[in-house]
């Protein structure tokens, strides 16, 4: 077990080293930030002054060592576009994305498991079949079209919910939250559904197929023979055993939710990290892109690592083959 964990930790470190190298080469080789910051009208002195100020006149190995030192402290320098500390901008934007991702994840997990169990138990029922075929369409619809559809329905036609932004937020220390105001909660509904829908259908389909598999097994038949009620059989005996693969998928999808938030945030102009990243790409704002890349890779690596180790702990077969 220890060698398995060690091997996985080494792999994760390798991923971080590689993404770190990519992030650094973005700084040194991509475009000329001076061009982006100063625009067309500039003097040579301006260019030289800014180059020295940003440390871009130094040799590449020096810049690399400097980058590693700074990155480890979460310092990615100054945004080319906004002229402010990247870490400051990220801290400011993070609460919006994390709140959105958390609500979407809870929605996806709760609704996904509930619908999955329902469609498995009432396999022949009309409602279950309708849910299953709707979910197929849901999987093939691109996320941004779902968002637009929801905006059209609930903002333009019905006028119930806001179509963009976060509503009013309350500041608590460094954190801003939309949970405490009515407009904040209302603004959260549509983006959260858009973001969580794909993961919800995924979890639902997985729970359903696992559940159908488990319900066929002998111990369920035995439980029925003992005269246990359907409720106890379905939830205490069957659902428990379907949870192993489901937990893995949920873990991996958490990272996906944060990544796909980029799309949802753009549709709803949600002031989070995803929107920040997209704007950074549009304006080739390298420090912001690099910081986002490093942040999200740390997140993904940790999630993958934890899921793999958890899985190996739950399922001993994996430990043997992993050696």
């Amino acid at each position, binding site marked *: 077990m220890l060698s398995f964990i060690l091997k996985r930790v080494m792999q994760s470190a390798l*991923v971080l080293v590689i993404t770190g190298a990519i992030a650094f080469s*973005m700084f040194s080789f*991509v475009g000329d930030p001076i061009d982006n910051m100063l625009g067309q009208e500039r003097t040579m002195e301006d260019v030289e002054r800014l180059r020295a100020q940003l440390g871009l006149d130094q040799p590449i190995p020096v810049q690399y060592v400097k980058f590693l030192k700074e990155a480890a402290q979460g310092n990615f320098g100054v945004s080319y576009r906004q002229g402010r500390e990247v870490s400051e901008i990220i801290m400011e934007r993070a609460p919006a994305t994390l709140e959105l991702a958390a609500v979407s994840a809870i929605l996806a997990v709760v609704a996904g498991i509930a619908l999955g169990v329902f469609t498995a138990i009432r396999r022949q029922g009309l409602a279950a079949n309708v849910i299953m075929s709707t979910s197929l369409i849901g999987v*093939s619809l*691109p996320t941004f*079209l779902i968002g637009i559809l929801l905006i059209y329905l609930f903002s333009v036609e019905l006028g119930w919910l806001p179509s963009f932004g976060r509503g009013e937020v309350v500041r608590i220390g460094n954190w801003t939250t939309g949970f405490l105001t009515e407009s904040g909660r209302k603004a959260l509904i549509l983006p959260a559904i858009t973001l969580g829908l794909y993961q919800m259908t995924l979890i639902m389909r997985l729970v359903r197929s696992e559940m159908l598999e488990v319900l066929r097994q002998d111990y369920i038949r035995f439980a029925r023979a003992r005269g246990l009620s359907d409720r106890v059989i379905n939830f205490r005996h069957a659902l428990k055993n379907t949870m192993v693969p489901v937990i893995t998928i949920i873990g991996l999808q958490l990272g996906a939710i944060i*990544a796909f938030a980029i799309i949802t945030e753009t549709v709803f102009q949600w002031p989070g990290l995803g929107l920040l*990243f997209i704007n*950074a790409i549009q304006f080739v704002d390298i420090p912001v892109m690099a910081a986002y890349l490093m942040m999200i890779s740390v997140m*993904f690596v940790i999630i993958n690592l934890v899921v793999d180790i958890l899985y190996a702990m739950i399922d001993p077969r994996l430990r043997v083959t992993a050696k």
Partner: protein
Amino acid sequence: MTDQPLVPETQAAPSRLRRALDSDLFYAFRRSPVAVVSAIVSLLLILSAVFAPLIAMTNPFDPSSLNLMNGFTPPLEPNAFTGESFLMGTDDQGRDVFSTILYGMRISLFVGFAAVLFAVVLGIVLGLLAGYFGGWTDTIIMRAADVQLTFPSILVAMLIFGIAKGITPVEHRDQMAIWVLILAIGLSDWVQFARVVRGATLVEKNKDYVSAARLIGRRPGAIMLRHILPNILSPVLVIATISLALAIIAEATLSFLGVGAPPTQPSLGTLIRIGQSYLFSGEWWILFFPACTLLALALSVNLLGDWLRDALNPRLK
């Protein structure tokens, strides 16, 4: 030759078409209504994109054919100033929406096909190398694949797009955007091809015909491309079809986010991005028709890919 041949030619050697029509695959195809309908829909869309200059009323990107007075004409209603009417209305600049969709679909499909082709070629080459040589080659290629698989492919594509955009000079960015897009989507998608090809190569390389080829002194490159590759192509074909649908959606998503096809060369995603800003003022058609086209395209190719996977899967027969 005026003499009648003794045996009618079709009987002696059935034509390629005849053989294709008699095959098991085509029989399975005819029996599946979903496959037939989605094949017809995708074929129609692809053909209308290819022949867009013949079908479209106007070339929406030729400024001389545009009339700003025609702007915001609803579908099938005469314009208040010019009296002209359009099947799917016009956008803010008076461009016929139907024509922009046809031309936009060309770009979406071109990017989709080119990106998948790029991913397939890259995946096949790296997969063959990893599977055939094993050892260090295998370790390096498959580790790189693992690292990339840690991240969702759309994120990888965005990042590659951002970096490539930074490298291209500012004055060429709009012209290069399409190629950058192909590179980004292709590079984000090679891993699955490489994995499948590697797996199949590992099986094939121990078979007798490969040993025989090696014995008569064929070079590794020739063995991989001429002997092994033809035997492992069918799973690649299946993944490529499903990948095409995903690549079309990925392209639309990137363009919608503003990190893809530029407004001067709009794909379906760019059109949807433009249309979204008119949703609130009631000009629904600028968004609605491109969105429906994208959906029809992605869904029909996807269903076709699903069907092909089931039809070519020997375990399901």
